[in-house]
């Protein structure tokens, strides 16, 4: 299941939301509390059994349904309750959980059949059991994937990659083969003549080869014997996900759960967790604790107070603004790690279709934005921003400045670090605008051909740090003659095309939001490929900037369709070159991840990737004093 959500969910009034994402390479922080070292590989310490620990977040946990929501707070519970096929360590490397080994061409689990077909075999560890003692089998895997692709399930978002699977075979009790190939499409019919399509695919798929599948297609198997006869459309209201999940596969199972903004999940050890795991490289020795409690506080300050009072041992999902208060707590350590959350500005290179509701946001409706065909304008605006000030305001200097448009967090293998671009150069920006025909008026603001250089930045509201950052950008752009206003899309920002989501329907000039990347840079293609432009035919595309660049399309097709790493790297480097010419985005800064933890939380390993910091809670123990 696709773990990574590429967007930040709407931010509740007054609070900042942060999703924890995948990282491949840590960025060094300059000042502040010491960072956790991500340079050495994770090695679990053998712990002592017994004791209790409590960990916390501040955003609500309404249900225990990992499929139905993109909330990190919920995932921090569900990741402990259900095991994954594989997960990711703090460095972004895939780590087997339920599988015996990570599928790859080296161990023969990934086989390229021909130019458009490949087979991936998922081998479970033999002897694994659910918490009630019944075996975890390949049937459970197939059942889960079928449900993900079932349109009635409405899981909203997990189908990327699965739509490349043409069929599946249960080879044995622990082995499932996924046949990737040109899948059925919406015009396909099955043997009885009824329409048959796979996983929400709406366009003909030429090739089933999907190289980024490792980062995207790990999932948590669900018990077929418990949920097999339940209509997937009712999973969201099924007591299995809303009251008490049983049976489950994670290191701890739920003893009691009270939901909401003051949720408490009390968990006890899963006695069958160890079945089938002896001798494994990871998670072979847990679980250690007598009881693990997940407590939700309604607000960050309540959680910080809870940490100070000793009521909770681990506090997750904090921000840099909290660091001063956290540093005052002597019984807890604070860790600040930059992961893979970055914020960027995206130009709308199409029409701003505000007010085109009646025409259902037809591509011809609305007014063309200033950025549509003006590469020099985009370049000038990029050069005009003081990214250091932005980073200071947003992250108190503890994040990282995005120097390159190609997101550095993917790791230096994928792109050319020598092609650094960013340097604030207001003089060059001014010169470029002058050359482009944007003349300065008497009030200092520019205009060209009767059109003023005035536009709006649109973002989700309610986040003071972000608003403060926007005010810096407004100031910087006013200095080069642009008149910028701020706008909020509140809860309508990320909705899809048919619902009239602000970004999807192009109702903006420049958008500002945070991105939650996965380890594989293929994820950028979702924002850049022409076939990802949202429309009524393709309602959930992510190319909100309406970028139509054949060079991007070719690079993306090349890297997705090849399992050879060298070919992929070459394709990404071509993509990077094109980005340097096209100036489609302005990356601003990388946001750090802040956690507070007690020194007696043994094996606690902060994970700024999609693994989340609960990824290894099977190894978590309480150090005896």
């Amino acid at each position, binding site marked *: 299941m696709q773990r990574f959500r590429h967007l930040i969910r709407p931010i509740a009034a007054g609070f900042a939301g942060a999703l924890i994402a995948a990282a491949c390479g840590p960025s060094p922080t300059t000042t502040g509390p010491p960072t956790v070292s991500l340079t050495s590989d994770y090695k679990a310490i053998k712990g002592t059994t017994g004791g209790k620990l409590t960990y916390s977040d501040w955003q609500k946990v309404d249900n225990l349904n990992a499929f139905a929501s993109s909330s990190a707070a919920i995932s921090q519970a569900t990741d402990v309750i259900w095991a994954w096929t594989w997960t990711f360590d703090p460095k972004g490397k895939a780590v087997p959980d339920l599988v015996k080994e990570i599928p790859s061409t080296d161990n023969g689990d990934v086989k390229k059949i021909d130019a458009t077909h490949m087979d991936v075999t998922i081998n479970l560890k033999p002897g694994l059991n659910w918490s009630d003692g019944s075996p975890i089998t390949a049937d459970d895997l197939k059942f889960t994937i079928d449900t993900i692709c079932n*349109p009635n399930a409405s*899981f909203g978002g997990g189908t990327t990659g699965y739509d490349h699977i043409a069929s599946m075979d249960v080879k044995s009790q622990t082995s499932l083969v996924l046949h990737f190939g040109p899948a059925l499409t919406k015009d396909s019919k099955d043997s009885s003549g009824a329409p048959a399509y796979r996983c929400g695919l709406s366009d003909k798929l030429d090739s089933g080869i999907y190289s980024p599948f490792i980062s995207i297609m790990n999932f948590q198997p669900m018990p077929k014997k418990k949920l097999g006869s339940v209509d997937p459309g009712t999973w969201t209201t099924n007591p299995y996900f809303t009251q008490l999940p049983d049976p489950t596969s994670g290191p701890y199972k739920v003893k009691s759960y009270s939901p909401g903004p003051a949720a408490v999940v009390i968990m006890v050890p899963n006695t069958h967790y160890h079945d089938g795991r002896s001798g494994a490289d990871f998670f072979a020795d847990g679980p250690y604790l007598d009881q693990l409690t997940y407590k939700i506080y309604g607000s960050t300050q309540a959680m910080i107070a809870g940490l100070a009072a000793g*009521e909770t041992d681990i506090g997750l999902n904090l921000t840099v603004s909290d660091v001063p208060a956290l540093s005052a707590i002597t019984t807890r350590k604070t860790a600040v790690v930059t992961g893979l959350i970055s914020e960027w500005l995206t130009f709308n290179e199409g029409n701003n279709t505000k007010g085109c509701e009646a025409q259902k946001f037809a591509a011809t409706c609305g007014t063309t934005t200033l950025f549509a065909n003006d590469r020099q304008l985009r370049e000038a605006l990029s050069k005009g921003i003081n990214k250091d000030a932005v980073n200071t305001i947003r992250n108190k200097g503890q994040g990282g400045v995005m120097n390159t448009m190609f997101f550095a967090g993917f790791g230096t293998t994928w792109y050319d670090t020598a092609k650094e671009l960013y340097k604030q150069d207001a003089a060059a920006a001014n010169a470029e605008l002058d050359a482009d025909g944007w003349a300065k008026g008497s009030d200092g603001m520019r205009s060209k051909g009767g059109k003023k250089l005035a536009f709006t930045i649109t973002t989700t509201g309610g986040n003071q740090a972000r608003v403060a950052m926007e005010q810096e950008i407004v100031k910087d752009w006013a200095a080069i003659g642009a008149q910028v206003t701020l706008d909020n899309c509140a809860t309508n920002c990320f909705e899809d095309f048919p619902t009239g989501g602000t970004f999807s329907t192009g109702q903006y000039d420049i958008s500002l939001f945070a991105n939650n990347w996965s380890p594989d840079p293929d994820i950028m293609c979702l924002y850049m490929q022409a076939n990802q432009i949202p429309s009524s035919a393709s309602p959930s595309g992510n190319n909100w900037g309406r970028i139509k660049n054949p060079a991007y399309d070719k690079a993306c097709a090349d890297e997705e369709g090849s399992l050879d790493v060298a070919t992929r790297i070459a394709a990404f480097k071509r993509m990077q070159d094109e980005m340097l010419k096209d100036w489609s985005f302005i990356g601003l800064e990388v946001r750090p991840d802040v956690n507070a933890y007690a020194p007696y939380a043994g094996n606690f390993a902060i994970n700024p990737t999609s693994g989340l910091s609960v990824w290894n809670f099977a190894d978590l123990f309480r150090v005896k004093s």
Partner: protein
Amino acid sequence: MLGYIARRLLQSVPTLFLISIVLFVGMQLIPGGPMQAFAFNPRMSLAAREAIIHRWGLDQPISVQYVKWLTSMLRGDWQYSFFAGRPVKDLIADHLPATALLMGTAYIVQEALALPAGILAALRRYSVFDTFVTFFAYVGYSMPTFWLGLMLLMLFAVFLRVLPVSGVVDLNLTGAPFLSGDYHDWFFQHPVVGVLDVARHIILPATTIAIVGIAVDSRFMRASMLDVLHQDYVRTARAKGLPERAVVLKHALRNALLPVITSIGLQVPLLFSGAIVTESIFSWPGMGQLFFQALTDFDYTLMMGILFVSAVLVVLANLIADVTYALVDPRISYA
């Protein structure tokens, strides 16, 4: 008398009806409509979206939807919360006790302070005490409740650290969340500690809510008392030679209390909304916090359920106030 009550009850029905229409239409007008809740995930396929629309009946005309909604509400079927996946009725039932506890405590504190203060201020008019009560009432009435809550939080919980920042119980102490099964077991074993624990947590939020009520009620009590004290029958009682205490307690007080009691009923809606922000500030797991979350997430079914409950409560409160008033004021005819 009964006829009057019955007539007022009947009159409430069209009011409730109209309110329900206004609420329902209001919810539909919000951009995106009820589907807003599900559309956060842009990668949802078109087929999945249509499946949801069909399942929730959102593809039917508004009039049909309204009738379906109204009948299901009246039948007691309040559907499931979009986000929690649990029945709305269960959620409301789970959160109601905490709010009831908070409201009840605030009310008791409020009246215990306001009524005596108002009476004494009226009896000792123009004294220092009276001036103090009046001034305090003005200030309390002028302060935004949420600001007061935050200031109290900052002073007692952050700077002085004598009171907890949030919640109803200390999880380390009880080992189980408030009102869960385990909590009941623990509470019966340690009743005194349990009560003290809740008391510690309830002081700040209850005070926040109560202050406005104290301000309003003390002034109203004072005015009502003053009004009564200048009536002829009081003067008569004094002239008859009755001791001052009897005059005050037997004659004046009883009459002065009546309008105040009526006004207490009218304060129910104010308390409910005061609870929204107070519960959010202090992370008190009650209806106010539930509604605030539902509003932020736009949890359609949950919002409708809570609004329905509050509308009924308000109408009931007004009805009780009217009836009480009619009962005690003989000048009102039941025409």
